[in-house]
């Protein structure tokens, strides 16, 4: 992803009020992590597993810091139990910043990614997690702001799936 796009994502997260990010880096959006770390308004926590990211973000969120978890699409599979019991059953607001690998618009798609990509949205639907697909920079700020507003309104996770321009 171009540096300018990464800066735009981080700027929009900050503008929307996100101040805590737990993350497990991956290939599509990883340029955002040094920018997040350098920006003093975020508390940034690397984790060993996306499930852990969800539970740590839940604690941060319930402690008063609007929280996000940045992960690859595969992380939704890995963390689905915690998304269900902490995100939905306990009802914890958090933003999921998901690299939507294996989607039709994924510029690096291959036999490695396509299958998990095909099943990602059905997984989110089965968990009843609201999601929005972003494939270009136009309207990025509004979508991030809207997703954060939604997560506070429903006190549950909301997912942003980044593909297209963000996967170059």
């Amino acid at each position, binding site marked *: 992803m171009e540096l300018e796009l990464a800066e735009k994502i981080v700027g929009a997260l900050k503008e929307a009020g996100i101040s805590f990010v737990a993350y497990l880096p991956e290939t599509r959006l990883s340029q955002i992590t040094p920018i997040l770390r350098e920006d003093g308004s975020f508390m940034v926590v690397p984790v060993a597993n996306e499930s852990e990211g969800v539970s740590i973000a839940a604690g941060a969120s319930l402690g008063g810091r609007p929280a996000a978890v940045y992960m690859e699409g595969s992380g939704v599979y890995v963390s689905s139990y915690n998304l269900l019991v902490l995100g939905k059953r*306990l009802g914890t607001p958090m933003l999921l910043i998901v690299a939507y690998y294996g989607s039709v618009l994924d510029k690096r798609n291959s036999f490695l990614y396509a299958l998990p990509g095909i099943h990602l949205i059905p997984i989110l639907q089965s968990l009843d997690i609201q999601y929005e697909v972003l494939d270009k920079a136009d309207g990025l700020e509004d979508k991030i702001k809207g997703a954060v507003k939604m997560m506070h309104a429903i006190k549950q996770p909301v997912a942003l799936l980044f593909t297209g321009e963000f996967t170059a």
Partner: protein
Amino acid sequence: MKRSECFEFLAPLITDQLVIGSLSGQRVEWGHLCPHEGNLLVASMGAALGIGVGLALVLPHRKVIVLESDGSLLLSLYNLPTLGNLSLSNLAVFVFDNEVYSGTRISEPSATAGKTDLAGVARSCGIEQATTVREIDSFKREAEKALEENVLRFLVCKVAATTGHRQIERPNEDLWEHKYRFVRYLERTEGKKIFLGRG
């Protein structure tokens, strides 16, 4: 040593600490002995320690106590390297290790009934103050230190597999109500808004 004896010692020491609990009989037992507004008993395996880490990070001036079990911790061992690296001085972790999955009703043994030493795993992940206690007097000594000192402590408490919690009437408060109670308590004691949605 029984878990209930440990809880009977810990409960009167709770003032403004936040207590995060997992599943199993300990949720029922602790909620009964210490019905504190700062309790967040998440009723799920493998999540309490992560939530405790998140709370301890964003509220560094508050003591956070995590009540885990052997089964729950074994399900989420990935927390330990993160915890070792963060070394949160306001966090105290108690793992009540009865060496069985007692909820199975046939007390199927967990890995800690075999060769797994959870305090050893924690130390190898960089959690320096990780230790195992087997007697109530040692528990009291270590628990007091964990609550008083400003250093990350990880206490594995070897307890008997008991079933006393099955005699305790279960609360009818659902998890959303439980969460609201916890968050409103935090909002009141921290003097800030936590839930930001508006009507």
